[in-house]
């Protein structure tokens, strides 16, 4: 049993607890502690990535209680990939925050650590009820982080976010209850083998519980018709929080992949792939409505929030197709959209800081102090997010489109993805020309461009060329991931007595 598996949960937990105990510490020592713990996550998650890439499922039985009686953590290629995504995004978001945004409310760093703990836990757990618990941990931290900085707009957006997610949690518990009542287990791998053996009188109940789970994860992932909370919440959040939240919708997507490839996957008989029929139309609708929202957005942050919805639609389409190639393409696109989405939120804040009280509203405003530098970064981010060559968004979309055989699905997806890309580009160029060209002559000289903030923002955006340069190894990894997810035997073997090391 490798104890490194539980460290991505323990490390932020202890750092967060220390930060709570030392609430009277000076801000700079809190920053050191928080930054140190987050930076430590980087080598740890890369080590776990290497470990997972050996191709063997790593199981950590808490307290050495063997599955299915104890609670297990499960590390496969998918969870390791998500851990790396979180660690990198968290580091850059925190680097941005320590340049001043963390002082705008108490306990920012402790909440940030607990947020990381919840996200890492959700990616690592192999137990459905523990997934619920980690969801709640990351949610309650995100509620407070969303309100960080205060103000009426944040409270308004926060109230919707909190109430909707509370209802979502209640539905999650109902689904878990039904699944436990029928299969008699909470371990996801064990549940998979029980679901496969379900009789005709139990299958409809399992079906209902599975679709209830889809509703809950759809709410987290922000797919149609459950995305209305997202644009307001993300546009209202402080920049580093909004950047970190780029991973939050991906937690929902991760759970969809996990539950519908494992519990209701290839082996589940009549229940296999029950979500795909629902996911496909929802994904396309999400894509369309996200693009319309992006065209109508009145501020840069609002535009970026809708672009996140567009990326969710694209990813869901990849998941709904159900083949290994499509899943691999979706995973590559997921890496790209998380990092670039986060980076663009940071950039929007840098731009807003130089526009005085106009903020990032898409109206005529004062001239920027660093139009060339910020403009170049915006250009880079826009190309990446709209999916133009040569950056990573293009590769992701190309892979996704090539994963489809010619047929009805291709006939629907190709025009939507390509047209959506075109309209995204239109919305972004409209926003860019307003922000950088339709400006007054006067500058506001009160604001200096902060080097630390710029570094964090550039770091995230420059990951896009890096993703392009390293496309070959990343692609082979995501293809291996998709292959591993579709080969259920190793997962089912983790619950046989004595099989776990």
């Amino acid at each position, binding site marked *: 049993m490798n104890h490194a598996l539980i460290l991505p949960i323990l490390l932020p937990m202890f750092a967060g607890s220390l930060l709570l105990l030392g609430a009277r510490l000076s801000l700079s020592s809190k920053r050191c502690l928080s930054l140190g713990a987050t930076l430590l996550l980087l080598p740890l998650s890369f080590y776990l990535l290497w470990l997972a890439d050996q191709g063997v499922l790593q199981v950590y039985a808490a307290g050495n209680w063997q599955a299915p009686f104890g609670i297990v953590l499960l590390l496969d290629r998918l969870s390791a990939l998500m851990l790396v995504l979180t660690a990198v995004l968290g580091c850059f978001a925190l680097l941005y925050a320590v340049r001043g945004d963390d002082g705008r409310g108490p306990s920012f760093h402790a909440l940030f650590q607990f947020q990381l703990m919840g996200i890492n836990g959700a990616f690592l757990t192999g137990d459905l*009820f523990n997934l619920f*618990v980690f969801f*709640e941990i990351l949610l*309650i931290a995100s*509620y407070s982080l969303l*309100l960080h900085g205060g*103000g*009426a707009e944040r*409270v*308004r957006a*926060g*109230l*919707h976010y*909190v*109430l909707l997610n*509370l*209802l979502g*949690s*209640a539905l999650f*518990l*109902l689904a*878990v*209850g*039904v699944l*436990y*009542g029928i299969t008699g287990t*909470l371990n996801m791998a064990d549940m998979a083998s029980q679901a496969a053996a379900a009789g005709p009188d139990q299958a409809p109940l399992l079906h209902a519980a599975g679709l209830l789970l889809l509703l809950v994860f759809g709410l987290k992932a922000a797919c149609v018709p459950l995305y209305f909370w997202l644009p307001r919440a993300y546009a209202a959040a402080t920049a580093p929080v909004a950047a970190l939240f780029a991973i939050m919708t991906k937690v929902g997507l991760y759970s969809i992949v996990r539950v519908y490839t494992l519990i209701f996957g290839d082996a589940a008989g009549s229940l296999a792939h029950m979500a795909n029929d629902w996911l496909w139309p929802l994904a396309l609708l999400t894509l369309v409505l996200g693009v319309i929202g992006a065209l109508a957005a009145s501020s840069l942050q609002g535009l970026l929030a809708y672009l996140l919805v567009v990326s969710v639609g694209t990813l869901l389409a990849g998941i709904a197709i159900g083949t290994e190639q499509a899943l691999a393409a979706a995973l590559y696109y997921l890496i790209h959209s998380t990092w670039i989405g986060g980076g663009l939120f940071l950039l929007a804040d840098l731009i807003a800081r130089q526009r005085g009280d106009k903020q990032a509203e898409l109206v005529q405003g004062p001239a920027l102090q660093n139009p060339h530098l910020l403009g170049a970064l915006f250009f880079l981010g826009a190309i990446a997010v709209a999916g133009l060559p040569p950056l990573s968004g293009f590769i992701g979309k190309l892979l996704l489109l090539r994963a489809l055989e010619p047929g009805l699905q291709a006939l629907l997806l190709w025009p939507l993805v390509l047209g959506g890309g075109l309209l995204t580009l239109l919305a972004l160029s409209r926003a860019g020309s307003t922000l950088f060209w339709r400006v007054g002559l006067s500058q506001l000289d009160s604001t200096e461009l902060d080097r630390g903030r710029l570094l964090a923002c550039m770091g995230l955006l420059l990951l896009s060329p890096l993703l392009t340069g390293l496309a070959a190894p990343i692609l082979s990894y995501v293809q291996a991931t998709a292959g591993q997810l579709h080969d259920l035997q190793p997962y089912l073997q983790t619950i046989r007595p004595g099989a776990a090391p």
Partner: protein
Amino acid sequence: MEALFAATLGILTASGVYLLLRARTFAVVMGLTLISYAVNLFLFAMGRLQSGAVTVIGQGGAYADPLPQALVLTAIVIGFAMTAFVVVLALRSLGETQTDHVDGREPEQ
């Protein structure tokens, strides 16, 4: 017993949904609380309803399933924390926006 239990859950949930749709923060919080009661009872019932079963294995034939009780306990603790948080948030919202509507502004007539 099953019919009575099911009817209780149904009434709790229906009342909760009705209160949620009132769209005023106090009613919404009450509604969420009622729904979480219903959910907790439902989880409890997933260990099957039986009376007189022993709690310790080996002391009799039929024993009560301990796992749903542990799940309910966890769910109650989490639900309690969430309710406390949402009450504070509702008060903050009332202070910041001068209205108790969940949208943060009064609906137009």
